[in-house]
């Protein structure tokens, strides 16, 4: 638990620094102050997609190795991914409303494909919640986690495949399409969300491990240990 707290503390410091740098970075010549949302939007979307790829790798690892820790990692990573993607979508819509004039552009395949990806992983979480048996839950989720990741590269490259209103990647193999003065804020925010992602995954896997241990104890104890009922307590 101490390790999780340290990760959260580091993430908190980095997020505060990222926010300060985002607010003090130079404004964009065309978009003005609204461009500051870029630092949150891009970082959250990156880590949303990365989280789903981690889930895919962990799911495949579970199907091969059948080790419970891969299932815990897959589930924790999806939860973080859904959170980041949700934040990224909302921030992107606010940014879009400010600079495009519309929160949602139906001609933009990046928006539609991201929304689809988001709902598929909500389905993944619903599936996990619906299956009680840990082994069956891990197996079914692993299959869905591996299949669903096919969308991630499609979402990422959709801005290259179709020319739309959405801007293309900021970081490319041939360099960055960003002013050098803005880069420190961008990289500090990326680091902050990396730390937050690690902290969230660590916390969620820790909780999942505890939950598994508790259910094992309950199974082992059977009916030997029965919690007191409220009416019995009142009778006494």
């Amino acid at each position, binding site marked *: 638990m101490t390790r999780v707290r340290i990760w959260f503390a580091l993430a908190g410091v980095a997020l505060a620094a990222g926010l300060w740098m985002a607010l003090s970075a130079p404004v964009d010549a065309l978009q003005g102050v609204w461009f500051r949302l870029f630092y949150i939007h891009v970082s959250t979307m990156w880590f949303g997609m990365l989280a789903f790829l981690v889930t895919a790798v962990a799911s495949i690892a579970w199907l091969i190795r059948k080790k419970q820790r891969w299932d815990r990692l897959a589930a924790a990573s999806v939860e973080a991914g859904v959170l980041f993607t949700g934040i990224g979508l909302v921030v992107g819509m606010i940014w879009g409303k400010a600079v495009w004039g519309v929160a949602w552009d139906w001609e933009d395949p990046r928006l*539609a494909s991201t929304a689809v990806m988001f*709902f598929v992983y909500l389905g993944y979480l619903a599936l996990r919640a*619906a299956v009680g048996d840990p082994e*069956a839950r891990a197996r079914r989720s692993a299959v869905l986690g591996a299949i669903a990741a096919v969308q991630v590269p499609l979402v990422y490259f959709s801005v290259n495949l179709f020319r739309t209103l959405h801007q293309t990647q900021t970081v490319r193999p041939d360099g960055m399409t960003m002013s050098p003065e803005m880069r420190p804020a961008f990289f500090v925010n990326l680091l902050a969300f990396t730390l937050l992602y690690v902290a969230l995954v660590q916390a969620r896997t820790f909780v999942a491990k505890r939950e598994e241990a508790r259910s094992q104890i309950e199974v082992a104890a059977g009916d030997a240990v029965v919690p007191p009922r409220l009416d019995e307590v009142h009778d006494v």
Partner: protein
Amino acid sequence: MKLLRQAREVARVDLVVEGRVGETLRVIVPFAVAALLVLPLAQGPNLALLRQVGAAVFWTLAVLFGMQIALRQSANDTDARRDFYALSGVDPAARFLGRTVSGTILLTVFLAVLFLATLALYDPPVAGGDLPALVLAVVLFAYGLAALATLAGEVSAGLRSRGALASLIVAPLSLPLVLGAAQTAAGIGRDAGILSWSLLLLATDIALTVVGIAVAGPLEEART
């Protein structure tokens, strides 16, 4: 060959069971046609608008009610039927393929009925175009949706919330199928190029088939 023979037999049994239960033809198809009445009643008899949105309404209902057909109760294996298949030596991959084929046949019939009903109620513009290409696009769409729903049905098999859960998985993942089929149909109407959209449909179908066959075994283990 053994796999295909088994798949054919599974599809045949599925269709016989469905023929007896009649869920698709007696319940879901009339429900879908009734749903076509909702928009004109809510919007008012604006004929120009109905002509304009006819194709969109068709594809929306095709996905929503197509999912219901592909996830129909008769395609939900009971433990007894699953045991019967297992003891008969039926490969899980053959069961996936067979179920997909039976779903494709039912969906194709459903889409034909829905198309005629949409034509009658909305009168959308339908150009002569290339009819075989349109039929092929519809069959590829039906196959993809059936494969996706079979896969989602297996992932959520035996769960109390199976219907809603499988639909939540199928609806967003069916996007390439809807895009491919709707754009192919629209392209035929406009005499525009349809190759890329048809290829998208075909590629999605192939990918779903490969994935379905690959994961059929592990998903079977999840239920045992």
